[in-house]
Each structure stands twice: as C-alpha cells, then as structure tokens.
C-alpha cells in the first residue's frame, strides 16, 4: 500500500519532467531562428506500475531525455542538391562576366566584324580615297582588338575560377577540421541525447556548408561520421580530418591533391569547387579554342586574299593580319600587320585606281573557312555556345532551387520550431507544473493533518 510519500515522490518526478519540458520549450523558442537548429522534444515514459495489496498503483513519470527531431534522409538530399546548385551557380556567375564579352556592346567581335565588312564595301566605291583606306585599316585594328579583348576576358575569367579553386580548397579544409572536432566531441557524449543534439546540429550545419563547396558523401561509422568527396577521397573519418592540397599544374592552374598527394582534380564534381574546375578546365577552354581557330583561319583567309592583289603603290599585297603561330593564343595575339592604308591590296592589276581585289577581300569575310563555317557563322556559333552555357546553368540553378526549397520545407516541417506549437506547449506545461506543485502542497497538507492526529499542538 502506497503511502503519502509515494504521491510526494510522484509529484516530485512530475515537477522534474515538467521542468525539463519547459526547458526544452524555452530552448526551442530561444533558437527559433538559429540556422541549423532542430527542435527538441522531451522524451517521457510512465514508470512501471506497482501492485500493492491487490491494488495497482501507477509509478509516476520518468524523464528519458530531450531529443532533437531530425530526418537524416532529408538532410542528405538537401546536401546533394545544394552541391549541384552551388556548382551551377558558380558556373553561371563565372560565365556571366564572360557573356558580356559576347553581348552586342559595339566593341564585341560581331560589331567590329560588321564594321570591318562595311568598311571594305565602302572602299569598293572609293578605292583610291585615303580616308576610305584608313577606314579599313582602323576597322581591321578594331576587329583585332576585340579578338584580343575577348580572348583576354576569357583568360581572366579562367584565372578568377582558378583563384576560386584555391580559396575553396582552403574553406573545405577549415570546415572538415571543424567537423572532425565535433565528431570527436560527439562520439563519447553520444549517450547524452541533449548534448549530442546540439553538436549534431552544428555538425549538420557545417556539412551543409561543406556540400556547397563540393559534392560530399556522408556515412556513419562507429566513431562518428565519415565524409568523403563524391569520388571517395576521404575528408573526415571520425575525429580525424584529411586536408586537400593545391599545387600548380603543368597548365599553370592549381591542381587539387588529396592528403596522399594524388591529383584528384578531374574527379571533383559539384559545389563551388566542381563548378570552378568545370569552368576553368572545360567550358572556357572550349570557347577559347573555338575563338583561336576562328582567329587563325580568318586571318589566314584574309591574308591570302590580300596577297592576291596589289596595294596603292602597285606593290604586291602583304599580309593584313599578323597572327601568332600555333593556334593557342591566336585570338589574344591577333594584330594588324599593315601600317598604312595605302598597303591595302585594293588593286587586282597593279594600277592604283583598280578596285578589283576588294571583292576578293570582302569575299574572305563570307567564304567558308577550313572549319566549314563562314567567319560570321563561326563566331555566331561561339555566341550560341556561351549563351547556352549560361542559360543552362541558370535554368539548372533555378530548378534545383525549387527542389531545395521544397526539401527545406519538408525538413522544416519535421525539425523547425513552431512558435504557436511552443506557446501551446508552454501553456500545457505551465498547467502541468501547477498541478504537480499542487500535489506536493496537498501531500504536505495531508502530512500535517496526519501529524496533528492526537497531538495537542498543530504542526
């Protein structure tokens, strides 16, 4: 048969449990806007009931702990999509600066090519006019300069992506070190649910940041989380982190090495790092190579036409454009070789008034180059590729953004703090606490009554 003390101890347990629930609620409210915080709920269970003299008496409540509510699968999906979106964003912002080079600004290749073409048409009607000759020369110089500026713009975007690689590797190393530290704190304290929850929140937040930088794969092992890059290079194993390194490669760009010194650059995908490497090693070199081919073939085709005629002094035409040998750097090094408008090979027969070769010069702008395209089409093709690369990256980022938003909503519906819910709980626990306190005071009153029995004075 339970005495008054049984009720008293149950009242005490109830006070403890309610106190813990109030703690959890106030912590939830306090961290309602903390990034990465997952809401905590109090885990209560009823104690085994006792059988006393044929009567079943409840055993009160036990506080099992406070648990953070999270969904690991959702976290994983968000991490993966974040790293894909971050890769697309990096590509998009790198290429954004590239595509302005190909926008119609008046100094882009399309505009200067058009001006060059019309300057030749003008020369056709005024073959002996020195200002028309100078016009062609200037238009040719402008065209060469826009090739230079475009190639240089592409190269500097490439260098910017290269710097981003170095910076991102530094950030990855800093994050993996922090994660390893948290892992080390987490593994012994994993028994204490409440403590583990907070550290786990921090760690999840860091892994989330890490997945923005590169695609990572997260698995659980006996001594904490194991994090590897998408292709399996270890970054964190339990309490140990493995730093990535960078070194200057043969191309002059930074190569990413794993902790053992193996070059893993080409296997890195996703995240800022993957995006930057993709832009630097694949996308921009593709544009540059097309541009260099165009510069080389166009210069050669135009020079051939120029050399077929005679200039205003009656001398055989010399090369109009000078282009560095070897196709790399052709666009960046393209320049006009002629120094005077009178050197333009307008004449087909050597007489100064002839304009017979201008048709050949103009034709060089519209005839098919060895690449199978006219200069304008070859350039238009590059414009298309650039525009398409940016718009694909943008579309990818938008689509992934939608998907991440939905996943985040789902995650929030599991782990997010609802002020309304917490307020309701607050009222609930307040009432429960008041009731538990009433038990204690009631038992105290009853004890007083009991002690007063047969006593001359009241206790």
């Amino acid at each position, binding site marked *: 048969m339970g005495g008054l003390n049984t009720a008293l101890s149950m009242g005490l347990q109830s006070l403890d449990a309610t106190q813990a629930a109030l703690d959890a609620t106030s912590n939830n409210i306090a961290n309602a806007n903390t990034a990465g915080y997952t809401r905590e709920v109090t885990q209560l269970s009823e104690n085994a009931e006792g059988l006393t003299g044929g009567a079943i008496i409840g055993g009160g409540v036990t506080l099992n702990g406070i648990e953070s509510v999270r969904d690991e699968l959702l976290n994983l999906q968000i991490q993966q999509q974040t790293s894909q979106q971050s890769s697309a964003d990096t590509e998009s912002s790198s290429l954004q600066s590239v595509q302005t080079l190909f*926008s*119609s600004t008046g100094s882009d290749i399309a505009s200067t090519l058009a*001006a060059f073409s019309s300057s030749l048409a003008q020369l056709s009607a005024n073959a002996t006019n020195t200002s028309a000759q100078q016009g062609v020369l200037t238009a040719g110089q402008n065209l060469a300069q826009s090739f230079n500026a475009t190639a240089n713009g592409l190269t500097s975007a490439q260098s910017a992506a290269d710097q981003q690689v170095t910076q991102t590797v530094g950030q990855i190393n800093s994050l993996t070190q922090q994660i390893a530290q948290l892992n080390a704190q987490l593994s012994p304290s994993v028994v204490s649910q409440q403590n583990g929850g907070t550290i786990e929140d921090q760690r999840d937040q860091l892994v989330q940041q890490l997945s923005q930088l590169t695609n990572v794969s997260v698995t659980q092992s006996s001594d904490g989380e194991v994090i590897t890059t998408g292709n399996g290079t270890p970054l964190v194993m339990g309490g140990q982190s493995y730093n990535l390194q960078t070194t200057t490669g043969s191309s002059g760009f930074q190569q990413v090495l794993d902790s053992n010194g193996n070059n893993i650059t080409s296997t890195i995908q996703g995240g800022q790092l993957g995006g930057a490497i993709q832009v630097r090693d694949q996308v921009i070199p593709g544009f540059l190579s097309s541009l260099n081919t165009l510069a080389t073939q166009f210069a050669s085709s135009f020079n051939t036409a120029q050399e077929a005629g005679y200039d205003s002094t009656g001398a055989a035409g010399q090369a109009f454009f000078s282009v560095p040998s070897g196709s790399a750097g052709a666009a960046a090094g393209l320049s006009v070789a002629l120094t005077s408008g009178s050197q333009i090979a307008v004449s087909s027969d050597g007489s100064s008034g002839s304009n017979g070769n*201008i048709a050949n010069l103009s034709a060089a702008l519209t005839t098919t180059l060895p690449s199978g395209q006219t200069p*304008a089409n070859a350039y238009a093709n590059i414009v298309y590729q650039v525009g398409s690369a940016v718009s694909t990256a943008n579309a990818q980022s938008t689509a992934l953004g939608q998907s991440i938003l939905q996943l985040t909503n789902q995650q929030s*519906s599991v782990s997010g*703090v609802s002020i309304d819910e917490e307020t309701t709980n607050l009222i609930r626990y307040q009432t429960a606490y008041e009731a538990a306190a009433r038990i204690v005071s009631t038992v105290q009153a009853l004890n007083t009554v009991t002690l007063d029995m047969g006593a001359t004075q009241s206790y």
Partner: protein
Amino acid sequence: MRVNPNMVPDILADLQQSQSTLNTTLQEVSTGKSVTEPSDNPSASAQMVQNGIETANVDQYTQNITDVMTTVQTAASALSSVASSLTQAVSLGTEGANGTNSSANLATLAQQVQSILASVVSDANTSVEGTYLFGGTVSTTLPYTADSTSPTGYTYNGNSDVNSVAVGDDLNVPVNVPGSQIFSDSSNNVLGALSSLVSALQSGNSSQISTATTAVSSAVNLVSQQQGFYSNAEGRLNAQETVLQQDTVTLTSQQNNLIGVDEATAATELSQAETDNSAALAAAAKVLPNSLLNYLTTPT
C-alpha cells in the same frame, strides 16, 4: 503531418521571383529589347551576329549606290555632250563636203571642228573628285594627253580594265567603260575621226571630207552604244537600291523578331508583374507577424 512552421524561405523565394520578373519586364519595356545578353536567347543572339553584319553591309551598299550614281551620271552626261558634239561635227562635215564652200569657209569649218575636238577631249578627261572616269582603272592619271607623235594628236594613258563596285552581297556592278572602248576602239576612233575631219577640211578635198564625215558618224554610233552602258548601269543601281531598301525592312523586322519586344505585350507583362509583386508583398506583410501570441492575454 506536421506543417512547416517557417514560412520565411517560401515568402522570400516568392518575393525574389516576383522582383526578378518585375526587373526583367521593366528592362524589356525600357530598352525595347527582349535579348540583352546571349543567355537571354542564345539562338537569337547567334542569328543577330549575321543580322548585324548584313545590316552594316546594306547601309554601306546603299551609300555606295549614292556615291557611284554620281560617277555614273557624270559619265553619262559627259558622253551625251560628246555625242552632241560629234553630231554637230557630222553636220559641219556634211556642209564642208557639198563642194560649194570657199576656202575661207572651209577654214572656219575646220576651226569649228577643231574646237569640237578640244571639247570632246575635255569630256574624255572628265573627273569626279580627282578620279578620271574614262581611264579604265588608271583613274589618277589624265586619260588623254596631247601627243604630236600620235596620228590622232592624243595618247591614251589609261588601260582597258573595268572597276566594279560592291552594291550587294556577291553583286558588283561595273561602273566604268575604259576610254579605249569609247574614244579609241579598234575599228572606230572618235578622236582620230575628228582629227581626220579637221585635216580634210583644211585640205579642202571634198571626197576626203566626205570619208572623214562618215567616220565621225560611225563614231557617233559607238558613243551612243556606250551611253547605253551607263543608262543600263544607272538602271541596275536604281533597281538594286530598291532591293536594298527591301533588305533593310527585312533585316529590321528580323531583328525585331529576334530581340525586340512587342510593346503591348511587354507593357501588359510589366503591369502584371507589378500586381504580382504587390500581392506577394501584401501577403507577406499580412502573414508573417501572425502567431498565437497575438491572441493570448497576458497571464495574471
């Protein structure tokens, strides 16, 4: 199922979306262009490269036609002056050949023909802005200069080449006839015929005068043939100008189709975007501050 308690990310995404649409439509309305950078429409941007080159060329071809037209018209009027001079010489020759003229009359006629010769030579040396029209492609040297050793008294310094001017893609219109084909071809020689007429009139030999007059008549035919060339060229240039005007219209409309915006659509989209943006902002302002706390009374 627990409902997502945090509406901020959704609301922010909506606000950003409507703001971005607003920016885009505003830009479209203010610039009149739907494509300002290649990523807006890669395919249209690529086609605009060709369009830009063609537009610049068509403008220049039109300018070329204006320039060349001056040359062609000047040459045509020079030739018509030559033709009337020659007709005049024929009538003078005919008058000289009728056998009733005194030697003084013949000398006067000879002088008149001599001055006609001088005016024809001057016509043959016509230039526009320093470019001689009848020297073939040797356009900077006087085509006909006096030369006592030549049977006609004049030497041709030009060549027999023709310049063609670009007035369209793959369309180069020949714009000159070398002097050698007008004033001195293999069977006819305008200057030669005139010189012979002068000598014949000076000699007073009727049959010689008559032969020389016939030669001048056939020279008239030669000149009128070449006048045909110039009027033909003028016709081609005028026709091409019409074609170019049509091309300009086509290119402009292509440009509008590729990168332009339809003003009405753009304005409608802008006002739609404004409404959307205001609605999103109003909804956010209404929903965000809502919580149970607003309705709870302070515990006493």
